[in-house]
């Protein structure tokens, strides 16, 4: 991994052979990538609907409250929603994007997609059984780990197979140097099985005291975000930003700093949720400090991304990929800021909806936005036609962006209020619930308008692409007509050959 390793191949200036090679690689990854993207998007649709129900149920339990719909109560829909969102959508789209980036950067064609497809089916089976299990009242009491007991081996096996595939792909790469995006993908492949196995062994298999099970759950959630979603999301931005701007990453040193701080700090986080609780106080304090240290990579990555795009910020206006990715990069900063905030004011924000705010910021504002950006880049190359409508991309972007900011900040502010009113020793629980209630109504409003709407548009657009209803052209779909190209810059975004 020398400093040249950050030089991303300049797609738009490549030779004819380069173009042919890339086209061949894209063809070879079509099956698994389309499989994971499609199932991811299907789960996105399901989870957004569940999310709407959960959100409304949270403040109005009377909504859809017929006797035969008893299973749709908040205690079951909320975990069904968040698990469908995390394991159905976030994971699968992350895997799809990781497979594609890995193949592209390793410059090898994918020979045998069978492993991936089998693993993908197993994964989807696991997620479906898990979500149905939760709705059937077989859930569990730890966040992001609510799937019934029998599901985790399925997911573990499926994911391990994908990890091994990913590492093999990395090992047979044509260049001996590795790109930053590849470090992140390999790291995520390496960590996640370990995180998942540890958490599930402690919870379901080994006779661990109840307190440590709760601790393992909090640690799992935090590690999943900082050591799986963050690396995969950043892999995408480290690939997409240089690709579209057409230059290499600004600083190799800063990339190193960011990577190793995330690696070194990520797994220390999580236990701050139980600050002042029955865990050894030292551990909760360490976890809280670790969450604050996550601000270091924010600075390093922020500078790096900003300087890479410098002088070409105008492209954000035209390139859908760059726009989503840039927004997602802001989401990364907000994720870590809110994580640090919740750690500092943990005695107030723990157990409030501020933690939901953190979840939504990390999973939607940061991760999903990054992934949308990647999908706008990858899908045309895979299916061979361009996105149909600029208007639809805009209708996806703006409500999503407003929804992401609104949802995240609204919940964090609501969580602070809720926390403060829970702290008031002489006021009743119901009044604290009432305080958060008004924020929860606002959350439902954001869900049903911005998030639901923008994702309906996206899902439709995605389906059109799948059925090849896109534009058959080599001109990428941009969000405007760039009259003057910046410094004669050719937009690399799109054009099925690029």
């Amino acid at each position, binding site marked *: 991994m020398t400093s040249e390793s950050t030089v991303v191949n300049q797609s738009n200036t490549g030779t004819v052979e380069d173009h042919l090679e890339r086209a061949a690689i894209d063809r070879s990854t079509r099956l698994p990538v389309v499989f994971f993207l499609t199932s991811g998007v299907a789960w996105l649709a399901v989870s957004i609907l569940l999310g709407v129900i959960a959100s409304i149920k949270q403040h109005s339990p009377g909504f859809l409250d017929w006797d035969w719909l008893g299973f749709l109560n908040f205690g079951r829909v909320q975990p069904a929603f968040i698990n469908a969102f995390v394991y159905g959508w976030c994971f699968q789209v992350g895997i799809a994007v990781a497979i594609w980036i890995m193949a592209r950067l390793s410059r090898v064609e994918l020979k045998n997609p069978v492993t991936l497809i089998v693993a993908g089916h197993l994964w989807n089976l696991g997620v479906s059984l898990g979500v149905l299990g939760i709705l059937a009242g077989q859930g569990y009491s730890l966040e992001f780990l609510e799937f019934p007991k029998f599901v985790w081996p399925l997911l573990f096996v499926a994911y391990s197979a994908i990890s091994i595939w990913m590492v093999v792909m990395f090992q047979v790469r044509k260049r001996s140097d590795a790109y930053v995006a590849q470090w992140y993908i390999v790291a995520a492949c*390496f960590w996640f099985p370990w995180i998942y196995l540890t958490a599930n062994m402690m919870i379901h298999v080994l006779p661990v005291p109840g307190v440590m099970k709760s601790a393992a759950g909090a640690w799992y959630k935090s590690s999943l975000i900082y050591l799986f979603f963050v690396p995969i999301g950043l892999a995408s931005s480290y690939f997409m930003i240089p690709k579209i701007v057409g230059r290499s990453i600004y600083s190799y040193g800063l990339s190193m700093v960011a990577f190793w701080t995330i690696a070194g700090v990520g797994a220390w986080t999580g236990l701050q949720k139980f600050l002042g609780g029955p865990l050894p106080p030292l551990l909760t304090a360490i976890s809280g400090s670790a969450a604050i240290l996550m601000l270091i990579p924010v600075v390093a990555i922020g500078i790096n991304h900003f300087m890479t795009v410098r002088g070409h910020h105008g492209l954000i206006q035209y390139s859908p990929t760059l726009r989503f990715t840039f927004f997602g990069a802001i989401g990364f900063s907000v994720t870590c800021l809110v994580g640090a905030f919740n750690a500092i004011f943990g005695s107030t924000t723990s157990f409030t909806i501020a933690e939901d705010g953190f979840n939504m910021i990390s999973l939607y504002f940061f991760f999903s936005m990054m992934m949308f950006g990647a999908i706008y880049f990858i899908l045309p190359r895979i299916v061979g036609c361009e996105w149909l409508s600029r208007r639809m991309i805009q209708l996806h972007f703006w409500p999503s962006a407003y929804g992401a900011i609104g949802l995240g900040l609204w919940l964090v502010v609501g969580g602070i209020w809720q926390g403060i009113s829970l702290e008031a020793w002489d006021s009743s629980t119901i009044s604290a619930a009432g305080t958060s209630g008004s924020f929860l109504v606002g959350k439902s409003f954001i869900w049903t308008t911005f998030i639901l709407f923008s994702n309906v548009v996206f899902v439709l657009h995605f389906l059109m692409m799948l059925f090849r209803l896109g534009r058959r052209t080599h001109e990428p779909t941009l969000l405007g007509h760039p009259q003057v190209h910046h410094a004669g810059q050719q937009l690399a975004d799109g054009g099925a050959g690029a």
Partner: protein
Amino acid sequence: MNKFRVFLVGLALTFGLPWFFLLIVPTLQMSRLAPLPVYELDENGQKVIGEDGKGNIVSYYPPLSSGSKTKGEEIYVREGCAQCHSQLIRDPRVAMDSYKREWGSVFDSMAPLQTRPTNQRDYLAGHYPVLGIRRLGGDLSNVAYRYGSREQMHLMIYDSRIAQPSSIMPPYRFLYKTRKIEGNGPSVRALALTGDLAPEPGYEVIPTGDAEALVDYLMALKKNYTDPSKPVVADAEAK
């Protein structure tokens, strides 16, 4: 290849260190914790372990959960009660939990000013992680003190809006069944429902086994028992 191995070792170390210190070490430490037998005072005022005459220890600290209480805990976990309810009283130096009147032992003017924070040993009573996810509802560590009767608790779970019209706790009507009143009048277990919620004449609403187990579990959630690992003087004060 060699570089790759260094990279992997780096990943393993950066991850393994926190993994070991945050999870493995405390787990090993905590697995040494065991429930303690509760002492009784014999006629000479000496502390002895309470036995039932056959050598079995009568009571433990914490009171161990078994049978239908464990079943109830399982239902608590499966129904997602932890999505809205916590079961931990944090240290008063950090949070106000132990001063919350509603979360403490008894909700009246005679109640002790401060509820004891929960400690690691308390959680040996159950089998599941019940510390909780959110606090949309209140803390349930000591909920049993606040309920005079099982009936009241059943009504709360059947539909919380009976007691508190603006409640946002979901109704768990599906844990109850409506059946025809038979033979010699309504069952003693039938819920006293009035108004809109009352079943048709000739019918009654009774708890299923799951609801009974859940209430068994909730009615055992009391954490102000004396802690035998503490000096006896403190026990007297806590009373």
